[in-house]
């Protein structure tokens, strides 16, 4: 008897090529609806005015199948979790540059991690709502990525939560704490937009235009400051971010290529979401310049490299072929690069009694670094105030702001900005809609408000809500209790719970191992 590879006698199936296998596992599961119309099956993709004639033209660039995707992500998770275990077992937190470094991570955990989870949910929605199987599958992969990012960030930082204040109820704080409404409202704005606007808002403007400004300096900062776990989760996420960036670029090009009438709609979204995202990344500016005991690069340097060179110099000339211009108000962002971090960390310093982090006046070495990083502005405009605030603190009169700040109706940042080109003139803009006055921080936010006042009048502004009695009570202690704060979560760093513990733990190491071992 002759052995055959196919005893049933049916012809042996030919092995599919990678491309054909990908097609079979993703596109071939798509079908044209027979019992309902396409409009009824996908009701959310027409009301924004975007015209799509051929969904099959949207090709997701990475062509991953689900099994390959999970294998690849599991490998990355294994590497990350072994680093987390090793760091925890060796008490790695004691090798950080300083305890106050973790203030940057507290801002990240409360401000950014919940956005990853929100992105997970909304990309899952897109994975149901887009008409084409290519974008649906790409959105599904990004949805799972975002869930993984939220989980790995929480797991990474949970080790620090055992030893340091300010991280214990980050999810509650994201919904309640005044400055976290900046990131929350930004994402809520995107979630409550249509599917195409969300894609331009998050997929393109955030993931492509601005993500390098957030993630690359953030990972480098972690590395510079001895935070191996955060650096590892950052790198683990960054390979996904590259895929998200490609998806964002693919999305905008697809929409623009489908119909000329899409161009002005997309241009307005690019204008809006650049400014919204830029205002959020301002939080990163103060982290880079002030919250890192070992600074890695200045905001100005990061902005010039990752935005001006890569985006304005690289991306937008390409998009000009489709009729897309650089975003409105970008000139103000360029001017602000010399000022932004100083305004925002000043704000964090003055209001840190009501935040989930601590602040302190930078030491002389740090002020000198800032002077070198900002040769045209720091000594001239900002150093004197830091020295004055430092002197007050030394005298026992540490300055905290005496009241509640005026907030911008759109970005929700306190009104801390100056007029474009004039660092001596405070910016206060107003708009009126249906008889009610609204205050805006800049021409950019005013333009966004005036474009959609019916949307932005609904903004949940923390200060206005406190005054309505919706935030635990009328006094600052009432509000802090409603935030879920505990002793040591907020205020001045010097003398704080974290600071005292940092000194005591390193003293113990020196007592056991000798002078110098604790640092």
């Amino acid at each position: 008897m002759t052995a055959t590879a196919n005893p049933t006698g049916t012809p042996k199936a030919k092995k599919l090529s990678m491309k054909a296998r990908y097609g079979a596992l993703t596109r071939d599961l798509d079908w044209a609806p027979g019992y309902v119309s396409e409009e009824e099956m996908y009701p959310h993709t027409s009301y924004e005015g975007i015209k799509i004639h051929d969904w099959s033209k949207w090709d997701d660039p990475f062509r991953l199948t689900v099994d390959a995707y999970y294998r690849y992500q599991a490998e990355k998770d294994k590497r990350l979790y072994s680093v987390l275990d090793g760091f925890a077992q060796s008490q790695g937190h004691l090798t950080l540059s300083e305890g106050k470094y973790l203030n940057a991570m507290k801002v990240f955990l409360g401000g950014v991690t919940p956005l990853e989870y929100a992105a997970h949910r909304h990309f899952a929605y897109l994975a149901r709502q887009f008409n084409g199987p290519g974008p649906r599958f790409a959105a599904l992969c990004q949805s799972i990525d975002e869930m993984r990012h939220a989980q790995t960030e929480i797991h990474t930082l949970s080790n620090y939560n055992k030893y340091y204040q300010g991280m214990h109820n980050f999810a509650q704080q994201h919904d309640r704490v005044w400055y976290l409404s900046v990131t929350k409202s930004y994402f809520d704005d995107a979630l409550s937009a249509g599917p195409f606007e969300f894609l331009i808002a998050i997929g393109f403007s955030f993931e492509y235009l601005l993500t390098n400004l957030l993630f690359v300096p953030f990972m480098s900062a972690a590395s510079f400051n001895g935070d191996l776990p955060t650096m590892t989760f950052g790198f683990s996420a960054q390979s996904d971010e590259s895929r998200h960036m490609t998806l964002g670029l693919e999305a905008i090009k697809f929409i623009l290529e489908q119909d000329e009438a899409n161009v002005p709609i997309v241009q307005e979204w690019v204008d809006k979401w650049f400014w919204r995202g830029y205002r959020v990344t301002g939080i990163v500016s103060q982290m880079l310049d002030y919250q890192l005991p070992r600074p890695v690069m200045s905001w100005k340097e990061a902005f010039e490299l990752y935005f001006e060179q890569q985006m304005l110099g690289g991306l937008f000339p390409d998009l000009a072929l489709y009729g897309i211009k650089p975003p409105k108000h970008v000139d103000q962002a360029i001017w602000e690069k010399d000022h932004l971090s100083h305004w925002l960390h000043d704000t964090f310093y003055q209001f840190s009694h009501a935040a989930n982090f601590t602040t302190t006046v930078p030491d002389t070495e740090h002020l000198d670094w800032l002077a070198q990083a900002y040769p045209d502005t720091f000594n001239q405009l900002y150093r004197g105030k830091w020295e004055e605030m430092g002197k007050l603190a030394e005298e026992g009169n540490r300055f905290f702001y005496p009241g509640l700040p005026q907030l911008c109706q759109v970005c929700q940042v306190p009104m801390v900005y100056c007029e474009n080109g004039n660092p001596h003139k405070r910016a206060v803009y107003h708009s009126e809609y249906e008889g009610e006055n609204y205050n805006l921080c800049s021409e950019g936010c005013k333009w966004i408000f005036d474009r959609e006042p019916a949307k932005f009048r609904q903004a949940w502004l923390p200060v206005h809500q406190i005054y309505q009695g919706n935030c635990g009570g009328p006094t600052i202690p009432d509000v802090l209790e409603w935030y879920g704060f505990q002793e040591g979560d907020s205020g001045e760093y010097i003398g704080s719970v974290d600071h005292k513990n940092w000194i005591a733990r390193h003293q113990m190491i020196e007592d056991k191992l000798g002078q110098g071992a604790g640092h």
Partner: protein
Amino acid sequence: MATPALYDYNFPSRSAQELYGDDILVNMVQTDDMWFRSGATVRVPKAMTWGDFYQTQFLPYVSANPHTKAGQAYSFQLQDVDFTAKDEQTLDELGVGHKHTFTFANA
């Protein structure tokens, strides 16, 4: 522009004056000194007199700025327009509206 939506898109302001009873929110922003990084918001009765507002809201606020000198006089603008008032006039009578902004500087 109308917000694109699949339904009638009409929701109220979450900061409407009616939500504060007989009170209004008023903002104060110092323009000639950057010590306060941000302007401030306070909740006050519409019927509060300018004199009361000055003594109970404005002076305690501005006095927290270590640059403030005792007895300093200030010039005010309300919504970018020069503003003067008599102590006995109420905010309502003076046209101070909900979420209006006073900018002020050393006179």
